[in-house]
């Protein structure tokens, strides 16, 4: 009897999750009257604004990942190695982006970095791009920090650091050749999550008026019928692709499998 309930709950959950997706995918394929086609996808891919916004968001994602890795890996490493008492506070700080809405952050940015401020980042396109990248890094911080911190927990960083030091290595060598390669899988997990967040983010890009993929999706959704559904399927595909890559890279870890 218990099994029937369990199976029932599972099937209900799967239907609840997949039916809208199936419906949306089905709708996205019905642009041509009376038959299934990829016309909506073709239109989306051939739209120059899609290419422009998608490329922009990919570039933003890559810079955000690079900045996030440079910020988070040394910080998480140093906190674990030298400042373990500060860990709860650092964790709290990294969780703040989950409770502070993006709109609050971006209005804060606009107030702080407007053209009449001491650092007028919004006064130029490059400056605004940098500001948006910082914003994305903040939004991705909880995921990146947790992923890296979990990765650091799996290795004995104190002993590895001392072993490397006794062999003549300085901090840059230790971070670059010992710590980073050993948490690479964790860093990649954080990177793919960051990528998914940046590709779909709307609020910051829209309010900073940058040509990102999120505002493009919103714009298309307000004016077209089939293309937004196709775009949503594409966005889902990108996110799932990222999750699949996280699973894939975790298989390439060159260390002992965790003990049961």
């Amino acid at each position, binding site marked *: 009897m218990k099994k029937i309930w369990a199976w029932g709950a599972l099937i209900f959950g799967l239907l609840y999750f997949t039916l809208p997706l199936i419906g949306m995918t089905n709708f996205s394929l019905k642009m041509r009257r009376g038959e299934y086609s990829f016309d909506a996808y073709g239109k989306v891919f051939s739209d120059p604004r899609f290419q422009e916004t998608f490329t922009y968001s990919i570039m933003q994602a890559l810079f955000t990942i690079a900045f996030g890795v440079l910020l988070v890996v040394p910080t998480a490493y140093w906190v674990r190695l030298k400042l373990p008492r500060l860990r709860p506070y650092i964790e709290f700080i990294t969780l703040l982006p989950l409770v502070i809405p993006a709109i609050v952050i971006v209005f804060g940015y606009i107030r702080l970095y407007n053209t009449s401020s001491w650092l007028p980042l919004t006064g130029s396109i490059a400056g605004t791009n940098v500001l948006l990248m910082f914003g994305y890094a903040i939004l991705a911080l909880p995921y990146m920090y947790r992923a890296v911190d979990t990765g650091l927990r799996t290795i004995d960083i104190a002993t590895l650091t*001392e072993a490397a030091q*006794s062999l003549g290595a300085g901090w840059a060598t230790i971070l670059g050749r010992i710590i980073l390669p050993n948490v690479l899988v964790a860093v990649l997990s954080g990177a793919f999550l960051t990528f998914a967040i940046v590709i779909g983010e709307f609020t910051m890009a829209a309010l900073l008026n940058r040509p990102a993929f999120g505002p493009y999706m919103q714009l298309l959704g307000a004016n077209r019928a089939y293309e937004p559904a196709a775009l949503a399927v594409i966005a889902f595909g990108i996110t799932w692709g990222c999750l699949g890559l996280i699973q894939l890279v975790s298989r390439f870890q060159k260390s002992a499998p965790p003990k049961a």
Partner: protein
Amino acid sequence: MSFLTLTNIQKSFGPVQVVHGFDMAIEKGEFVSFLGPSGCGKTTVLRMIAGFETPSSGSIVINGKDQGTLKPNQRNIGMVFQAYALFPNMNVHDNVAFGLKVAGAPKAETDTRVKQMLSLIKLEHLADRFPYQLSGGQQQRVALARALAVKPQVLLLDEPLSALDAKIRVSLREEIRQIQQQLGITTVFVTHDQEEALSISDRIVVMNGGRADQIGTPFEIYNTPATRFVASFVGTLNIIEAKVADPATGAVAIGNQQVSLKEQIAGMKGGDPISLALRPEAGSIADSAKGDTALTGEVVSTSFLGSVIRTKLRIGGDVISFDMFNDPGLTPPTFGDNVTLRFAAKDLLVIRE
């Protein structure tokens, strides 16, 4: 002048002082073991030599150079850790080559040196393996090769055998000693295993409560322990509580029996309590046993340990153990037997605090 000199080293963590006035001079090529229980400060002293801890006061001089201001990566000290500490992302070859690459050695020279080191530890065939594909003993040998590859001026071994099983421990400690003698490298070895320290060291420092209780050769440490702690920590030792009967003749009373130490007991008077120590292997109950001193006691238990038979005797208020070599013709005493234990008076040591 000694190669490695530690002078009046003190170390405190907050209000807790863990090392008190530690002095030591180690000659070039010497193998010195720091022996003591957990928390005695032996690893802290080792870590101060490596540069991972800074002494609260005192100086560390290696080959005439004060190490005080040098960072760990500037000291050219090889270190082997209890937890192996091989880099998981590198194979055996790259682990051993790491220090050489950091030093900027040319690739050909690095490869030659790595081959030499792997040949030294007899693991040339495992150069492409990753650490997780090696056994504990193999990992520790690679860690040793990695530490030696950079030709360090001092090799530090921090309980390198503790995580290994008993058989590997014995074979690897012999291998470490052989390699150390072959290379003539000054080595400091930290252990809490007295057998390990006794078997491979030129000298042993027995540490207790952050102090060096005794520094000496294994022979000296075992046979003439300077303090009660050294006597009890190194080897198995019977402590017998007695009373001075006549300090001039060295006579002492153990329960209602009297024996003579055959030498004057300085600084004591008749009736003073005195602690005596006797190694289990120093006595025998065989009729043919030689010895100028004898004590009679009642057998409390007899344990068969393979090569030896350990018997416990109640003498006075103490229970003391003694060992006999196993012999098929031997009839071990049984519970309740009254036997006479014979030994040489010189083996009965007076223990000072």
